[in-house]
């Protein structure tokens, strides 16, 4: 049982936003889609939700094609950057709206699960941004989806709220056995929340795997570094002690996700983060080379 995308293409005006996406998300998995702005991740989400059509390719759930099925029949709900609580309703009424039986009790139960008990009759503007986002999450869950899409829902929140909400969502989704697809530009967030991560770059899948595997193969995935007047993905650059024309100085060593990394300063005064060999020492000069 799973969500399967094969060869998904999407073009907007004169830009190819998605150029052949293949993705498979098994039931019950929390999957993260990571990429910079413009990589096509939000578009992909909207296609899965049914808010956009695909130009080519297939989209199926449990081998049943979803293309052509209107959004309100897909049992796929979405959480956006903005809570988008309907302004003419109270907090609780927003959740009740989504429940299959329009049940106040169910809504109140959901509100308790997102740690907002007793707030049914509150007005939207009485809640903080983070609380509103929690209500929106409760509402998305109340609709009994089989897949929940999360479109950078933590973007507008301050860091503490972010962590709290990330953990809440991860825990609740796991508890309910839901399948979830999270879109984010924050790699750390993806690592924290997801079972598997897919890296999107310029409308294509660049890499896919568990956070551990990706950390080893994609140390700073998404970054670009200039070398010889051209931009290369950081993945294609290595740091070596064999002299080349591009010198860098190792300023700081650290470990992240079990991987040895270093912060290097370049002649122009900018800094890059790249892998570090065990033998490297702080303060020493090393060289950049295209792999």
């Amino acid at each position, binding site marked *: 049982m799973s969500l399967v995308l094969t060869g998904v293409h999407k073009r907007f005006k004169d830009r190819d936003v998605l150029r052949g996406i293949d993705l498979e998300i098994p039931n019950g998995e929390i999957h993260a889609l990571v990429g910079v702005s413009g990589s096509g991740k939000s578009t992909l989400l*909207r296609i899965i*939700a*049914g*808010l956009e059509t695909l130009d080519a390719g297939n989209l199926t759930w449990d081998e049943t094609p979803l293309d052509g099925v*209107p*959004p*309100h*029949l*897909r*049992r*796929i*709900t*979405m959480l*956006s950057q*903005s*809570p*988008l*609580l*309907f*302004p*003419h*309703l109270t907090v609780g009424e927003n959740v009740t*709206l*989504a429940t299959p039986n329009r049940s106040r009790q169910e809504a109140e139960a959901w509100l308790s699960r997102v740690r907002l008990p007793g707030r049914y009759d509150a*007005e*939207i*503007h009485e809640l903080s941004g983070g609380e509103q986002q929690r209500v929106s999450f409760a*509402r*998305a869950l109340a*609709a009994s*989806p089989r897949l929940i*899409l999360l479109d950078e829902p933590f973007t507008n929140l301050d860091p503490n709220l972010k962590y709290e909400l990330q953990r809440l969502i991860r825990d609740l989704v796991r508890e309910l056995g839901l399948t979830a697809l999270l879109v984010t530009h924050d790699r750390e967030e993806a690592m924290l929340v997801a079972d598997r991560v897919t890296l999107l770059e310029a409308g294509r899948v660049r890499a896919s795997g568990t956070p551990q595997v990706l950390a080893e193969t994609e140390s700073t995935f998404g970054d670009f570094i200039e070398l010889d007047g051209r931009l290369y993905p950081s993945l294609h650059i290595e740091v070596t002690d064999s002299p080349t024309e591009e010198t860098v100085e190792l300023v700081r060593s650290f470990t992240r996700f079990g991987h040895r990394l270093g912060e290097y300063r370049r002649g122009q005064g900018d800094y890059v983060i790249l892998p570090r060999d065990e033998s490297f020492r702080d303060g020493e000069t090393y060289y950049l080379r295209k792999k």
Partner: protein
Amino acid sequence: MSRSSLWLSLFVLALPFTGVAFLIYETVGFDWSELNDAAWRASLAVTLYVTLVSTVLSLVIGTWLARSVYRRQSTWLASLLRWPMFVPHVAAAYLFYVLFSGGFPFYGLVEANERHHLVVILTYVWKEVPFVFLMVIGTYAQLNQGYVDMAKTLQLTPFEQFKVAEWPFLVKPLLDSFWVLVAFISFAYEVPALLGVTFPELLGVLAYERLTTGLFLNAYESYAVALIWTLFIFIGVIGSYSMTAKRRRRIERGVRR
């Protein structure tokens, strides 16, 4: 400079209220039972019928068109709907009169002046749909598409999607339009004078005629009717606005544009 404009505007706008005050003054001591004759009662019935049918049709069609233009970005439709706005009501009424006088194109299928006031209604709908369209399209232009998308992904039926993502924002412009149209259509002379029948006449037509022809005493009947009708609308406006005030305030506080 805008100060002087303000004071002049206030003076001009005070005139209708002054007019109503004078109507009250003139109808003191009026014998209200005189309004209980068949002509006024029949007029009231037919006026309510024509007003409500015209208004409701205009609101529904105008909103539906605004929605279509919004969803499909049909600028051609928006441009086309401006044409009726160039035609004064009187001219529209006469055009419809000519169209329905027998001969091309309707060949007397419906007569211009007939009991059910169909052509009157048609004329008003033709003229008022663009007005409602204009009032409503502004709301759709400001509508946060996110709400519409959210309603879809929450697995709501298309009707529920409309009810929850669009309707709350339509209440104000539709309420405004409803009362402007009711005030305009229910007590007008120009259009029904050209397209109505001799009995029963619409309220405005009857009032004007009783004012300008016949006995001096009849003038007070017209003033009295004008007064009650204005007060009736006034109560309707106040009532409907206060009933929706709480909801509208809530929307203003909670909406994200």
